[in-house]
């Protein structure tokens, strides 16, 4: 049953040094507030999983929280590179970063398989690609009915999943609406889960097939207003595309990055850190 916790307490309780953490949200509903709190608590040696690392992982990598990254597309969407990610891969700064790289289709299937309690995901994937040559986690199985060889990758089963959603009711049942990504899968695949929400409401008041994660499938629910900014929350606030563009210059250089993080994250209280 979900506990209602502060952001500080939820991160302190569930995100341990060395943990495998999946913070999801496909462009939409990216849990920035929680990412900033993990940075503030100076968690180390994390294995981070995310289809699209985005600015949130650029920040966590640049601040030295991360030992390994499992991902499928590591850019600033529509803008260019993630400079902190590149610096870590190309120059091992601030710490060496081990990467395990997949395709979106494979990652999506691996979350699905994790949610389904399976050890592997099966897909018609990676045909002709060099990715299996550099990622030993991409193997294959043979279909016993057709003889077809299909790609197999390990399912994603993180220690902790962290997502942001629009709202929760007083029982901790969470509604996600709009671009729902792989958030439900991430939560169901994980041992523990933290869901930050814009608000707590009396009733979710929605339609019969809404994407709702029941409170009994969540570890902690945390109120974090504007907790996805500069990403967005459908029905609450739009994506701050301007900031995504501005980030390119901030992150390009180690000093400007450090200064920005210092001002906007390290010295901010949880409720101030997101923008």
């Amino acid at each position, binding site marked *: 049953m979900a506990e209602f916790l502060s952001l500080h307490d939820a991160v302190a309780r569930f995100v341990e040094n060395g943990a495998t953490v999946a913070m999801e949200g496909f462009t939409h509903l990216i849990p920035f507030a929680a990412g900033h709190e993990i940075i503030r608590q100076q968690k180390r040696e994390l294995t981070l999983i995310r289809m699209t690392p985005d600015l949130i992982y650029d920040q966590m990598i640049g601040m030295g929280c991360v030992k390994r990254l499992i991902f499928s597309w590591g850019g600033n969407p529509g803008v260019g*590179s993630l400079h902190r990610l590149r610096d870590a891969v190309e120059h091992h700064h601030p710490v060496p970063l081990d990467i395990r790289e997949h395709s979106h*289709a494979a990652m999506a299937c691996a979350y699905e398989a994790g949610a389904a309690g399976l050890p592997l995901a099966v897909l018609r994937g990676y*045909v002709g690609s060099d990715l299996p040559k550099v990622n030993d986690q991409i193997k294959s199985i043979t279909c016993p009915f057709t003889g077809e060889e299909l790609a197999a990758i390990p399912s994603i089963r993180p220690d902790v999943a962290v997502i942001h959603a629009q709202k929760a009711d007083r029982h901790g049942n969470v509604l996600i609406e709009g671009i729902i990504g792989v958030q439900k*899968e991430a939560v169901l695949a994980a041992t523990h889960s933290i869901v930050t929400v814009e608000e707590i409401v009396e009733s979710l008041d929605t339609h019969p097939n809404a994407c709702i994660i029941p409170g009994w499938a969540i570890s902690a629910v945390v109120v974090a207003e504007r907790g996805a900014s500069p990403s967005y929350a459908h029905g609450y606030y739009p994506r701050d595309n301007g900031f995504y563009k501005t980030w390119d210059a901030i992150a390009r250089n180690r000093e400007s990055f450090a200064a920005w993080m210092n001002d906007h994250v390290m010295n901010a209280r949880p409720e101030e850190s997101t923008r």
Partner: protein
Amino acid sequence: MSQPLADITPSEMMTVTAARALGNGTTCFVGIGLPSEAANLARLTHAPEAVLIYESGTLQTRPDVLPLSIGDGELCETALTTVSVPEMFRYWLQGGHVDVGFLGTAQIDRYANLNTTLVGDYREPKVRLPGGGGAPEIATNSKEVFVMVKQSRRTFVKDVDFITTVGFGRDGTARDNMHPETARHMGRGPTRVITDLCVMRPDPVDHELVVTALHPGVTRDQVIDATGWDIRFADTLETTAIPTAEEIEVLRSLKVRTERHHAGDTV
């Protein structure tokens, strides 16, 4: 009515040519950036019934401005419906419902293999690029693939450093002799590469890219200079049709709307 040629940029020429390749009613899995621009231009001109799908889960979307990211709110708000990302890749792409996968790239080689992973060696890269994203399976599970990319020697290389996304493989045979069940689900691969200079198509036999049309005013030498291998030209080389005034007008106003929209707040 054609737009006066002098008034059209090579980029616009590329986008309009790519847009025209997309038939009305086609289901198109759209990559972000150039493909998104071309696919939406098609939808706003000759192909109002084109079905645009983005990997964020938005099915049949009709954005009024071009999304900056693959998952902008605009895409969901104008979609027929939005599904989860696993459903998108499993049911809609791998399930065989995509006619055209529309991709950009950082590098492309003579067999239309795409590299968006890195320049140099994998463990010690010179330049680390964003990676594959949806492209590896878009390229194999769509019925055919269009590639759209600005042409230069840095981009058009004889052999890509890394095959992120297969065209026809290192020797052009990657799609031959597959298991029948795989073959039944694999698309034909890249059928057109549209650049700011020309259109290339794979040779029907050996699958090497061949220039089949030059954009108006572009010379063979310009194409040769911008290609990192000994590029072949079709026997009957066509000239791309000039964009109409309407196409240019719609494209420009789409870009103006988009720019205004994304200016948004800044720090």
